[in-house]
């Protein structure tokens, strides 16, 4: 199976081109179907009473008044739900030592964070359910709360879960080479403390689920805004004691996910349990306030790190001590140890050096649980690495570009293994950096910066190289015992009119998965993308798969689709050869018709072949295979992950009177292997950059010392908005993975991975002549002024 990807004039050349998104018009016209749009007969709504305390014993729940509210049907406590739903423990066998207590859909006798569900009120409308929820009288007995990350393991800090023995959820130490000796003998050792602010991925559509239990069929149907329908199917079946085959998860349109919607949430499982108990469809749509307390948080890290360099800029060692606090429970089923683990795996990633030590310490605290959010661990690891590299360059008086050039893995050095034991099939750090410098006119910008500095204008240029983990194999979750598929499948069929239907296990949350699949299938079969209908998000309909996360949609789902499409093409041509009394190898399918492959001469439209196969099969030779439905699955096996790489640059201006940072321009050159749809990839990168810029400058969840959430609304939690965003220039280098025909790696994490570090380095580049430096995100105006010593308290 070969496709001449290098030839843009090849027939059916849709892979590599920007083709229209099949769902764009529908969504723009407001014809999307989100969970909240779905209404079933006898539908009821649930609202949750959530703990106002970070840690409290629940002595009793009085629902009498709530039950008197018009429209309120029933109230459920944690114990009520526990009768039909087992708790879960979010650990993975390969994350050795990871522990977490059993977690119930609704807290049974103790609430462990502000926002944990404590009771559920079911009513004929959401408003009535909220009226009822406001009248539930919970007898709380406040307990001491653990809120400080760095003292969580101290002897005088209370233990959050007595059964766990201490507040340590997970610890991992990775050591390569002799770090202590390298630090001792190096020319310079630079140390820094980094902080990444706790934030969350604010989805446009909040978390939503509608669950219907049909007792006659003994089937549960969950309409769910999720990235992983099959994983949710498994979780609901397991904990509600149903056969997996009797749980159907349907995922229609989803309004953004960013990793937020790839987890099993207590309130969503409770909704399913209530549907089963009441025998009625139950809808739960999180409102924005409860999203901030119940959607997973992420990135709450404090890091002490060192880099050792020689006089010529050679990096000899890195030493990273990472701490993260994950809230009260490890999140099911992916666990909350992955982010810290990724920091260990990804620090130093672009660089070829010998001595590396990294430790992550993951602790419990009475806050909202944290888990995987877009670019899991990457922005933290890249900030540590690239921050240190810039500091080292400044220390030895070397240009930040030059120090990177001297240390990055050479483009011809692959396959290679990083000091963190990550295996790279093929990366392009130098080609990407060169392209970036050209796009941004690095020397010109440096000259402009110097000129403006004379006028008292403080501009900075920041560079950040990175590696990006995509296309995960079972090494990410499966080997740890989680039923999370690393394999994905696609079924492609031809209907009588010659149109093509593709059913895929990967999912669409607004990023264009279906557009990508449509063009891959179109090229694979030989029809225009407009003749391909893509169906995703229904566990009873599509092949089993993992869904869309960790940038696997194109690399895994796309390859399965390509192979299925090529298999269908072969099946069609086998029939065509019989009908046309030709050799199969001399025929091709182009633009929806069977043609002579040498001359391109049209031989037969696919409609005609469809008519014969489906309605006049009697005219075909007996025994001729006529399988116009083909399914293929794909899983990566040569490498645990398909690493990609890239480099970003930020140009900005710091107002040293106010501390305000103005982003002037941003560049990213990344290498996601084969680019299937340039516009979708560029926008994926831009969106990712924006989320990274949010973490760098704006987004931070604030808690007080008692564990109260202080900013649970869009007025107080600052997401990045258009007015503050810079123009973004995106470039690509393509190093296709050799593991697949398609050669695609992921692109979803790159933007978020590198932009916070690029901004940090640019701010520090601007501040360096004044002897100031910031390493605590987000870089608020106040933090910048404090670094400058401008505020006297």
């Amino acid at each position, binding site marked *: 199976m070969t496709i001449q990807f290098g030839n843009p004039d090849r027939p059916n050349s849709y892979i590599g081109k920007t083709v229209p998104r099949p769902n764009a018009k529908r969504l723009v016209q407001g014809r999307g179907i989100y969970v909240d749009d779905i209404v079933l007969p006898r539908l009821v709504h649930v609202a949750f009473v959530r703990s106002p305390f970070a840690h409290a014993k629940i002595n009793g729940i009085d629902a009498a008044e709530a039950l008197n509210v018009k429209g309120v049907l029933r109230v459920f406590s944690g114990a009520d739900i526990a009768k039909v739903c087992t708790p879960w423990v979010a650990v993975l066998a390969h994350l050795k030592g990871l522990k977490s207590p059993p977690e119930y859909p609704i807290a049974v006798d103790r609430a462990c964070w502000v926002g944990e569900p404590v009771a559920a009120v079911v009513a004929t*409308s*959401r*408003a009535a359910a*909220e*009226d009822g929820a*406001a009248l539930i009288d919970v007898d709380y007995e406040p307990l001491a709360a653990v809120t400080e990350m760095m003292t969580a393991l101290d002897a005088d800090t209370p233990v959050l879960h007595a059964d766990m023995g201490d507040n340590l959820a997970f610890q991992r130490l990775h050591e390569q080479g002799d770090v202590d000796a390298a630090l001792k003998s190096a020319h310079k050792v630079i140390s820094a403390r980094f902080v990444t602010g706790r934030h969350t991925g604010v989805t446009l559509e909040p978390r939503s689920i509608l669950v219907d239990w049909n007792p006659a069929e003994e089937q549960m149907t969950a309409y769910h805004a999720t990235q992983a329908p099959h994983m949710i199917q498994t979780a609901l079946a397991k904990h509600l004691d149903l056969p997996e085959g009797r749980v159907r998860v349907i995922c229609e349109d989803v309004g953004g996910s960013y990793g937020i919607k790839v987890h099993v949430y207590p309130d969503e499982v409770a909704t399913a349990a209530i549907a089963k108990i009441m025998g009625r469809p139950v809808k739960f749509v999180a*409102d924005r*306030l409860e999203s901030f307390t119940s959607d997973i948080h992420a990135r709450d890290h404090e890091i002490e790190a060192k880099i050792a360099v020689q006089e010529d800029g050679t990096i000899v060692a890195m030493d990273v001590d990472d701490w993260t606090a994950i809230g009260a429970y490890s999140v099911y089923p992916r666990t909350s140890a992955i982010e810290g683990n990724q920091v260990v795996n990804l620090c130093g990633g672009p660089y070829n050096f010998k001595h590396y030590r990294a430790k992550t310490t993951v602790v419990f605290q009475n806050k909202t649980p944290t888990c995987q959010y877009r670019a899991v661990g990457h922005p933290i690891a890249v900030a540590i690495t690239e921050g240190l590299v810039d500091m080292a360059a400044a220390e030895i008086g070397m240009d930040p570009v030059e120090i990177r050039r001297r240390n990055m893995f050479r483009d011809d050095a692959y396959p290679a293994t990083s000091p963190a034991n990550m295996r790279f099939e093929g990366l392009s750090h130098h080609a990407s950096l060169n392209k970036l410098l050209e796009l941004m006119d690095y020397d010109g910008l440096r000259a402009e910066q110097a000129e403006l500095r004379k006028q008292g204008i403080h501009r900075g240029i920041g560079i950040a190289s990175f590696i990006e983990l995509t296309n995960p194999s079972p090494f990410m979750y499966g080997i740890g015992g989680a039923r999370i598929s690393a394999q994905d499948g696609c079924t492609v069929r031809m209907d009588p009119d010659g149109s093509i239907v593709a059913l895929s296990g990967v999912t669409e949350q607004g990023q264009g998965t279906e557009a990508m699949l449509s063009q891959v299938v179109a090229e694979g079969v030989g029809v225009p993308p407009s003749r391909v209908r893509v169906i995703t998000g229904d566990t009873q309909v599509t092949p089993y798969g993992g869904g869309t996360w960790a940038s696997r949609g194109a690399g895994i789902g796309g390859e399965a689709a390509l192979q299925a499409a090529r298999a269908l093409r072969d099946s069609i041509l086998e029939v065509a050869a019989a009908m046309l009394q030709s050799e199969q190898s001399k025929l091709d399918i182009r633009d929806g018709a069977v043609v002579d492959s040498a001359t391109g001469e049209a031989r037969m439209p696919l409609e005609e072949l469809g008519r014969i196969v489906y309605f006049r099969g009697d005219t075909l030779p007996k025994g001729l295979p006529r399988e116009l439905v083909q399914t293929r699955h794909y899983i990566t096996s040569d490498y645990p992950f398909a690493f990609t790489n890239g480099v970003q640059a930020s140009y900005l201006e710091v107002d040293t*009177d*106010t*501390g*305000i940072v103005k982003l002037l321009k941003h560049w990213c050159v990344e290498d996601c292997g084969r680019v299937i749809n340039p516009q979708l990839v560029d926008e994926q990168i831009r969106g990712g950059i924006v989320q990274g810029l949010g973490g760098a400058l*704006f987004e*931070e969840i*604030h808690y007080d010392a008692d564990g109260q959430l*202080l*900013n649970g*609304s869009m*007025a*107080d939690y*600052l997401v*990045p*908005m258009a*007015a*503050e965003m810079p123009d973004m220039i995106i470039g690509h280098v393509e190093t296709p993975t050799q593991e697949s025909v398609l050669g695609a790696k992921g692109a979803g994490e790159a933007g978020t991975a590198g932009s916070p570090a690029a901004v940090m380095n640019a701010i520090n580049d601007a501040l360096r002549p004044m002897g100031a430096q910031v390493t605590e995100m987000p870089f*608020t*105006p*106040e933090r910048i*002024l404090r670094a400058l010593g*401008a*505020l*006297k*308290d």
Partner: protein
Amino acid sequence: MKASAGGYARASDVRQALEMLAASDGSGRVLAGGQSLIAAMNMRLSTGDILVDISRIEELAGVRETSDSLWIGALTPHAEIGRNALIRDHAPLLSQAVGFIAHAAIRNRGTIGGALAHADPAAEFPAGVLALGATLHVEGLDGPRDIPAEDFFQDIFETAIDDGEILTGISIPKAASDERQTITEVARRSGDYALAGVCLVKRSGKHRLSLFSVAPKPVLAVQAMAELDRGDIEGAVRALQADIDPSSDTQATATYRRHLAGILLRRAVATIQGESE
């Protein structure tokens, strides 16, 4: 969350609105553009309100001039304030302020009367009318009253409007030919409430300086004004610190706000001087 309103009625004139408020037994809330009230209701920060909708009362709309002042109806939307030629000519500070207020959708519905009656200490219009020396007109069943801006803002979200009264409009003295007006602020994002903001008016050699987001209510910085009148800008920056009483929140500490107030005052003075040259 879903709002939980106690009731809704639309008034066709001010008299009817006042009667509705009187009949609502203390639960009445005036609804104009709804850009703060509806958000608060949707978060159930306010429940059981009987909404008295004044948004269609014609006598509360429009901008008119007399020989020496402008009258701005309470229902004038922010967007209209921003584009109205009379306001641009005679109270340019308010036109400039609109550029700092929220986003287009909010500016289209939000009204100046709503913003003043809501009295958010971080909002632009309350500080603006304070700097401009405006008079606020309220009306109750007992008749109308005029309240100088200096007396109108009393505390965080608290004004001199009595229960059962409605803010009907404001009057602003027309700017003199040599008058300079400016507003400046610092916010984390375009359209956010300011971390600190300054309104500065120079009228016949005398200054009026008001600040927002640096105290529980907009502040007329009288000590700094006296320094400015003397021509001592650095003295004004120092004196300013006694005029303001900022608090700390998740966006900024009081210390940072105090620093910003001084920076913004210098910038406002520079703007006015630049315009005068």
